């Protein structure tokens, strides 16, 4: 066929028209856009039936109720539980990010044993036999007291079971970390007698005098405190914040009174003096004062005259007087101790002096006041069965009163005082001041057994790791603590089957006791932890299992409170930070960074400002006046008696000249690329300072120098 001009043009036009009209082109474009986005590696979350499980969060001492949204059996979101009497709805970022902990890259997935510095997986049976073998030898050698145990707290049935285990085994050496609750219990013990703790009715008080308490920085039960702060604004209640830097709490306060770090106790003593001198104390409550109120009065007038304290604290004498009088004249004043989150290194003198202000106003055990309340005793443990070895060991003197002291004792002694150490829910190798020495002390302990969900710094220094289910995978009673006025016990319930080969800590202990046999097995005569828990809380189990919580006490406690001034009347010394450099380095509590166990989640780290951490570098807050010649964002070396670190400067008008601040909770050294190896662990720069009255670390700061790096 001959192709002439006419048919060529015809064909061509026909083809153009055909392509234009045909759906092929549009279809191909559409397909290509669909197929280029139809990438199999982008997950498609499976759909299913929506349900909500109620439980309690145990990530921090806040003990908030949570509601977990599930798709079939899969938890997809954690939110605050509206009906839980601690948080009443709302949750903090760490709780909301809680599901990330289930699948955390650092989860310990199976029992591990250290062999030549490397961990190898073993079975639960092997792990229990290994630990029981070691413990059996200790008892054979008549030294059950060489078993020691560190837990985060002594509240609740799980720390209770560790205590039970230690007593049955024959060791008095169960110690805890320093938490806000432990400081409050010790303060109450010092001033009012043992078995008591303090609660602060921030929801109703009309004048809150906070001595650096980070009321919206994670102090106490964070969500409850956030709510109290919001309510305060609506009620018109005043908040005065006494703190060396403009924390979020200080920025929200009605007045921010900058103070030289570490002089809060002196200020509180001077204020006590003003109240006593001006006759602004409550005579009715004063009838319960014991242990030399007159002696205390004479001492504060002599040792803490306002002019002298004004010079020490950097607050004018007129301001001190005005603040003290405003506090005393308020209807419902509350003075709040505990710098930052109120945990870790604090000072008993400071806590006691601040709480004495509460006692002098007489606003104790009243609405809008401070509650001196009994430590809730809802657990009824059976007496542990002890044999002769155990009785002898348990009767020995305690090696140490706290985890801090235990670590120091081990570090300083030449002979091994502890053969085997249990660690549960604590990370002393990270969070005690001077962790290098803590790590050295751990290296001296022949056998460390860690009950943990995550491979953190302390887990890495352990010999055997028993993997523990997270709070979302197990039962546990969760007593409220940390300055709440209401005593509530919550029940954490598993919302998902254990993701890995883990067990609840209670089950691990019961199994270990059974492996040991003899009196140990007799002391742990429960088939599993759930049965055990049920038998330990007979009075409230029904309520717990039905409502998810039981309110043990609310409203002001009844009965008279006696106050004993003996401790303060002796004028215990105010602790000074180590070193003689010209700057004072204070650790900063930042709500977005977790400081205890577990470490921050990836989501939490994502929220951290780029003026706190940038790539791997950490910033230190400094007043531009202090930074003579140095540049904002420039690199410097911070040197303290404990060590030195390379950091960047964050010029901040909100920090006192002469003071520099670093955020706590960063600089982790474990293997999690989302969370660890970012910044510096501020505890590495702080040397502990032991307060004689409490035997505890009171290093609120350290002296530091900076130089261009």
């Amino acid at each position: 066929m001959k192709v002439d001009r006419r048919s060529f043009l015809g064909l061509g036009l026909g083809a153009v028209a055909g392509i234009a009209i045909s759906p092929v082109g549009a279809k191909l474009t559409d397909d290509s856009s669909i197929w280029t986005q139809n990438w199999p590696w982008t997950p498609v979350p499976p759909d299913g039936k929506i349900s909500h499980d109620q439980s309690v969060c145990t990530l921090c001492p806040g003990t908030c109720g949570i509601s977990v949204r599930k798709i079939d059996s899969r938890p997809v979101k954690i939110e605050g539980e509206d009906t839980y009497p601690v948080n009443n709805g709302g949750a903090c970022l760490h709780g909301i990010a809680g599901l990330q902990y289930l699948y955390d890259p650092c989860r310990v997935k199976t029992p591990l044993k250290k062999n030549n510095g490397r961990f190898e997986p073993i079975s639960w049976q092997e792990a229990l036999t290994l630990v029981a073998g070691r413990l059996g030898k200790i008892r054979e050698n008549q030294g059950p007291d060489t078993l020691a145990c560190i837990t985060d707290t002594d509240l609740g049935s799980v720390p209770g079971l560790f205590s039970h285990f230690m007593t049955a085994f024959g060791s008095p050496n169960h110690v805890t970390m320093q938490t806000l609750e432990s400081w409050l219990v010790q303060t109450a013990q010092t001033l009012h007698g043992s078995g008591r703790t303090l609660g602060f009715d921030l929801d109703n008080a009309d004048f809150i005098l906070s001595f650096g308490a980070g009321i919206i920085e994670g102090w106490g039960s964070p969500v409850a405190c956030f709510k109290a702060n919001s309510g305060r604004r609506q009620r018109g209640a005043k908040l005065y914040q006494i703190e060396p830097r403009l924390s979020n709490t200080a920025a929200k306060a009605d007045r921010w009174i900058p103070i030289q770090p570490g002089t809060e106790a002196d200020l509180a003593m001077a204020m006590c003096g003003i109240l006593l001198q001006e006759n602004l104390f409550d005579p009715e409550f004063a009838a319960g004062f014991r242990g030399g109120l007159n002696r205390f009065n004479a001492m504060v007038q002599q040792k803490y005259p306002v002019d002298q304290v004004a010079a020490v604290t950097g607050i004018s004498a007129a301001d001190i007087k005005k603040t003290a009088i405003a506090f005393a004249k308020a209807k419902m004043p509350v003075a709040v101790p505990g710098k930052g989150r109120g945990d870790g290194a604090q000072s008993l003198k400071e806590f006691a002096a601040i709480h004495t202000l509460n006692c002098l106003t007489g606003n104790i055990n009243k609405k809008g006041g401070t509650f001196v309340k009994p430590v809730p005793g809802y657990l009824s443990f059976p007496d542990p069965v002890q044999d002769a070895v155990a009785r002898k060991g348990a009767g020995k003197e305690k090696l140490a009163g706290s985890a801090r002291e235990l670590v120091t004792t081990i570090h300083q002694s030449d002979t091994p005082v502890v053969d085997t150490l249990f660690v549960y829910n604590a990370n002393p190798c990270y969070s005690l001041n001077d962790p290098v020495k803590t790590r050295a002390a751990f290296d001296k302990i022949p056998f460390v057994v860690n009950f943990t969900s995550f491979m953190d710094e302390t887990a890495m220094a352990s010999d055997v790791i028993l993997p523990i289910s997270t709070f979302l995978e197990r039962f546990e009673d969760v007593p409220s603590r940390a300055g709440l006025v209401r005593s509530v016990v919550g029940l954490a319930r598993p919302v998902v089957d254990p993701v890995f080969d883990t067990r609840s800590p209670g089950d691990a202990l019961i199994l270990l006791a059974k492996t040991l046999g003899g009196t140990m097995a007799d002391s742990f005569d429960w088939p599993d932890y759930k049965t055990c828990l049920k038998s330990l809380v007979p009075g409230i189990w029904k309520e717990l299992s039905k409502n998810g919580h039981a309110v043990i006490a609310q409203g002001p406690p009844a009965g008279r409170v006696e106050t004993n001034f003996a401790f303060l009347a002796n004028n215990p010394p105010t602790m000074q930070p180590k070193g003689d450099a010209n700057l004072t380095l204070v650790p900063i509590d930042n709500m977005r960074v977790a400081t205890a166990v577990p470490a921050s989640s990836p989501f939490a780290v994502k929220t951290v400002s780029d003026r706190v951490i940038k790539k791997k570098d950490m910033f230190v807050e400094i007043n531009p006046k202090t930074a003579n010649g140095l540049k904002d964002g420039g690199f410097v070396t911070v040197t303290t008696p404990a060590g030195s670190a390379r950091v960047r400067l964050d010029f901040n008008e909100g920090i006192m000249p002469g003071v520099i601040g670093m955020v706590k909770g960063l600089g982790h050294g474990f293997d999690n690329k989302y969370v660890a190896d970012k910044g510096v662990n501020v505890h590495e720069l702080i040397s502990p300072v032991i307060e004689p009255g409490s035997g505890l670390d009171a290093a609120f700061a350290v002296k530091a120098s900076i130089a261009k790096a």
Partner: protein
Amino acid sequence: MIQDKKAHKFGMVIDLDKCTGCGSCTVSCMAENNVPFKEDESDKKDSLTWMRVYKLTNGRPFPDTRTAYLPRPCQHCGGKGDHGHSPCVSVCPATATDYGYDTGIVSQIYTRCFGCRYCMAACPYHARYFNWWDPVWPEGMEKYLSPNVSPRMRGVVEKCSFCYHRYQLAREKAYYEGSDEIPEDAYQTACTTACPAGAIIFGDLNNPSHKVHQIVKPDPHPDPLNHDVVGKSRNPKVFRLLERLGTNPKVYYMSEHEWIRKLGDSYLDGEWDKVKNHHGSASHDG
């Protein structure tokens, strides 16, 4: 398809005096909307945070410094005159982002987006984020992803949707229960329910019984000084970001402090004093 008969105008008011800067809203948003995370999130320019919390400072020296926080979701602009021509919607060549006249919500359809990022350039609030990489979750962590929001892929823009899936669920529930009314508490965004300080109030700005309407008291008339501005608050403590642009955001902010309200826009010397006491049209004072 379920049709909602009434035209809503969902909006938010954030009390900056209550906001503690804790970050719960940010995390709740990320957990609700399957927002991924990377190894290093310290470069905030490419960090996906639909709800981002900015720190404000009054810039004064010690000890008169004060700080505050400002959470910034998508502002769900109504555009000039509140006609639905939001800055991003009007530039999108793919209709991947659209204005919902029944809700006032600015949508984002990931599968339509081809990543030109015009919308990001057009958004005066930096509320839009681009996926430079495919999302990667650590092994097993994809198990917590919610089926209500599809995870995004590399090359698309994403932003806050006022938790639109929660609106859909609430609407379906209302329909199932035979009602055409969505109760105020049936549709709340993830940031609102998470906020432990109760700083975020969410609801229908068109509904006088909703708290957000009662606080904002939106002016139904255009601003006499600038006819592009509609829905200006008649509450002297309430302001919007860059209000004078006429983008008409549906996110309002509230503060007692003048220095915070002043930071809502970039004012020239003397400008603030002229506008600070102007709250809506004179005919609706009080």
